[in-house]
């Protein structure tokens, strides 16, 4: 029946002590990806200053241990970065930073990348700017896999 899922210490650390959980009032950008049907939803809030630097990041996640951990570490990885640098965040980098993910959980890291991109997209829409290399968010990432 079920495959036993074992998490790295880093994943467990981010799951049990998630960083930057919460909401940002009047955020510069908010992105929500995933769907409840598949069991994962991630929402990322960004506070971006006039120099296009991410001053604050918060997240909320409905999902498994890996979903929480990937969102938590993603917020850490883009905190204080410029919009352009944040855009470079990849699911591979998220996986590596967590010391690896079980095969069935790889999609969680993809979701984290998508959530950051979706929040950046929202920011660009609100400001009426175009961010080089940023594509509109996919609502259901499972469709893409």
């Amino acid at each position, binding site marked *: *029946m*079920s*495959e036993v*899922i074992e998490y790295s210490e880093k994943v*467990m650390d981010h*799951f*049990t002590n*998630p960083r930057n*959980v919460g*909401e940002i009032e009047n955020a510069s950008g908010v992105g*929500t990806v995933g769907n*409840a*049907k*598949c*069991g*994962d*939803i*991630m*929402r990322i809030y960004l506070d971006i200053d006039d120099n296009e630097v991410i001053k604050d990041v918060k997240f*909320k*996640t*409905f*999902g*498994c*241990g*890996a*979903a*929480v951990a990937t969102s938590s570490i993603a917020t850490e990885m883009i905190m204080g970065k410029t919009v352009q640098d944040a855009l470079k965040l990849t699911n591979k980098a998220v996986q590596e930073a967590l010391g690896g993910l079980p095969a*069935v*959980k790889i999609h969680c890291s993809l979701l984290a990348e998508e959530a950051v991109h979706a929040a950046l997209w929202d920011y660009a829409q609100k400001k009426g700017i175009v961010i080089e290399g940023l594509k509109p968010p996919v609502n259901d990432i*499972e469709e893409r896999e």
Partner: protein
Amino acid sequence: MNKLIYLDNAATTRVAPEVFEAMKPYFEDLYGNAASIYRFAGESRKAVENARRTIAEFLGAKPEEIYFTGGGSESDNWALLGIAESMKNKGNHIITSKIEHHAILHTCEFLEKHGYEITYLDVDENGLIDIEQLKASIRPTTILVSIMFANNEIGTIEPIKEIGKITREKGIYFHTDAVQAYGHVPINVGELNIDLLSASGHKINGPKGIGIMYIRNTVKIGAFIHGGAQERSRRAGTHNTPGIVGFGKATELAKDKMEVRAKYETELRDYLVERVMAEVPYTKFNGHRTQRLSNNTNFSFRFIEGESLLIMLDQKGICGSSGSACTSGSLDPSHVLLAIGLPHEIAHGSLRLTLSEETTKEDIDTTVDAIKFVVERLRSMSPLYEDFVKKERK
């Protein structure tokens, strides 16, 4: 680490000390092959036959109708594949339900690939099959009805007596997967018109790796494992004497304690359900309220996901299980929870807690307190809960 609170007795149970004691000699001293001729092996043979008799009596069967197998899944596979093969001249149609264990469902899928037609009966919101739908599904080509005695996830006990009445009238074989029910509720294969029944040792404080199949002596079925004369040449392989002895002992204990145990577990179960439903908002209780196994509880907590819940409970020393997709390695949550009509997102947030006679009221109190804490914490992190609260405020 806190004291371990083990509430996953539907997954497996502790081997009772009496069972372990009964098994020991058959590892150390009486290791003879039950099929050998010398007197030394006769002790093993006697032990196997004693266990067979105990189990047969418990089920109201004859000893020669009890076959030892490697466990519940093997028995389920044998029942379906064996009848499919032996009855292929009569027909190719099998009726089962949507909430069976995967040992049944995946075997049915296998049979579908080989030309068999399977009807999967629906269940209502409590997990009960509809007798009328069963009747309407019977065809001239129906060779087997396989409906579980009690469900492993939500504990609902199916109307076995009514099913047996119908299958007997129609002359169709009736198999029941009784892995969760055996030793927990009284079963008499004669009164219930059961033709084949699967049961497993490790769900009733017996050892793992041992199961039985009851096969009524009028049932036409071939061998499942080929290669020896064991088990009336139908299930070859050297007898797992310690396992068989353990299963026999566990059956004896279960029989003696069944009533007292069911009463104790039912009281604790109801206490757990009452506390959770009263103290954790936005919670759904899954399965039939009363027609269910005495040790089974199943809840869905809205806005949160089951795997997260399990990991956080584990950190508090509490073992439970969930029907969330993330604990099954697929994207879909439990087929049982979907079959009783739960939407995906609510099925993802399910928690099954299954008690034992060793569970105490303190264990339950500790568990409920932990659930309250963990559910609240996960909800505070959940975008679904955030949206829900904002909507409520409007």
